[in-house]
Structure formats: C-alpha cells, structure tokens
C-alpha cells in the first residue's frame, strides 16, 4: 500500500492522506513542506525545483521502504513536486499511518530528513528583487550502489 511519486502536478494533501490508514492504525502523521515567503530575511517570490526524475523516483521509493520498515507499517505515502512553485504551494507531502503514534511520527520525520540528504532534487529560490539563486544543498549519501 506504500506509495511515492515525483511529479510536476500540484500536490493535494488530502489525497496523500487518503492513501494511508487502515482499521489497525491508531495514528496518522502528515508532513507538508511549503514554499515560504522569505529566507534569512530576504523576500522570496517562488521556488523552482529541478530533479533527476527517474533517479529521484527510485530513491524516494527506497526511502519509503526504509520508513515503512521503521514504522512496522506499509502505509507510507510520499510525493515530491518539481517545477515552478509559488509561495504557499506544497513542495512535498508525507503521510504515515501505524498502530502507534511514536512510529508514525518517527517514520514521517525519517522520510523528510532522507529526502533532504539523498533525493537528487535542487531548488532555485526566486527573490522579489528579481534575482534567483540555487540553494546550498547537502552532499548526498554516496554509499556505492545505495538506493
């Protein structure tokens, strides 16, 4: 039942939420990443997400498998957006359900942290003054052959 995608389509949090939850689950955790209107005090007008789509999809599926293992649940749904986003738009949605809350929180947190360190996606912040900059990123995990 776990599911993940990397897409240029707008993200609907309610749809991601609906992908998790079974009668045995007592807890659901949802995390949304949102484009915000400033960074270090500099006014932001939007964000462009560029990705290595095929690899990002494979990596995200692997992250979801790992999170599901941690949560002891196969109810993990994640979608990451690509393309031009405006302030307030959802860049990533992560939903996890599991019998108990600690695992649901832990797995959702795991997914977002791994996305930020492993997923081959880059973002260019656009500022109100018309400039744009690729944001500093993380050197990804480079275990040979790691998925």
């Amino acid at each position, binding site marked *: 039942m776990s599911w993940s995608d990397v897409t240029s389509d707008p993200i609907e949090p309610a749809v991601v939420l609906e992908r998790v939850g079974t009668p045995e689950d007592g807890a659901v955790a949802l995390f949304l990443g949102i484009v915000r209107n400033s960074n270090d005090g500099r006014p932001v007008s939007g964000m462009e997400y560029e990705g290595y789509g095929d690899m990002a999809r494979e990596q995200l599926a692997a992250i979801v498998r790992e999170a599901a293992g941690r949560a002891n649940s196969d109810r993990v749904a994640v979608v990451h957006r690509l393309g031009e986003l405006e302030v307030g738009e959802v860049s990533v949605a992560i939903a996890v359900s599991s019998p108990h809350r600690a695992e649901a929180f832990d797995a959702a947190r795991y997914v977002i942290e791994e996305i930020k360190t492993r997923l081959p996606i880059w*973002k260019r912040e656009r500022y109100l003054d018309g400039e744009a900059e690729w944001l500093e990123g993380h050197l990804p995990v480079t275990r040979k052959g790691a998925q």
Partner: protein
Amino acid sequence: MRLTRRGADSSARNRLPLEVTVLLFAAHRELVGAPETVVSLPDRATVRTLLVELRGRGGSWTHLPLQGAVAVNRKYGDGETVLADGDEVALIPPVAGG
C-alpha cells in the same frame, strides 16, 4: 540532446570502446550550458577517468568538481566506480529537496 558525439571528442582519435551519457543538473547544467553530453572512454574507465576527461574539455568544464557526488545508472557511485558502455552517469550537485 547529445552535444558531443563519438569521434567529435578530441581525445578519441582511436575508436574508444565505451560511450557513456553524462547528465548535468542545476548549477552544473548552467555552468557548462548543457543538460547532457556523451563521452567516449577507454576500457575499464572509472567515474574519475570520466571527470578528468570532462574537465579536459577546457573552458567552464574545468570548474566541474572532481570530488562531488555521482550516480551511475541512477545509483550513487564514487570515483572508483567502473563504467560500462551505455552507462548513464549523473553528476549530482549537493541536493536540496524538501
């Protein structure tokens, strides 16, 4: 879009046995002005061989990092990863998803 073809590569006077496609993203893509390029390499070439070859093109290519992350066929590799004909090699700038 293949910007460099086998034989068009100045280092490939002799027909080299490996041809790999290199993908460039974000700041790397803007640096060299292309999202993709094809490189011919000798047998048993590694990712490091490829990076040296790319930097040898001169111009903005010399600014590509030798130590950055790479993926071979969509899996993270490193400088020692041995390449095969037809491989898809992506130079991965520091990532910033989320």
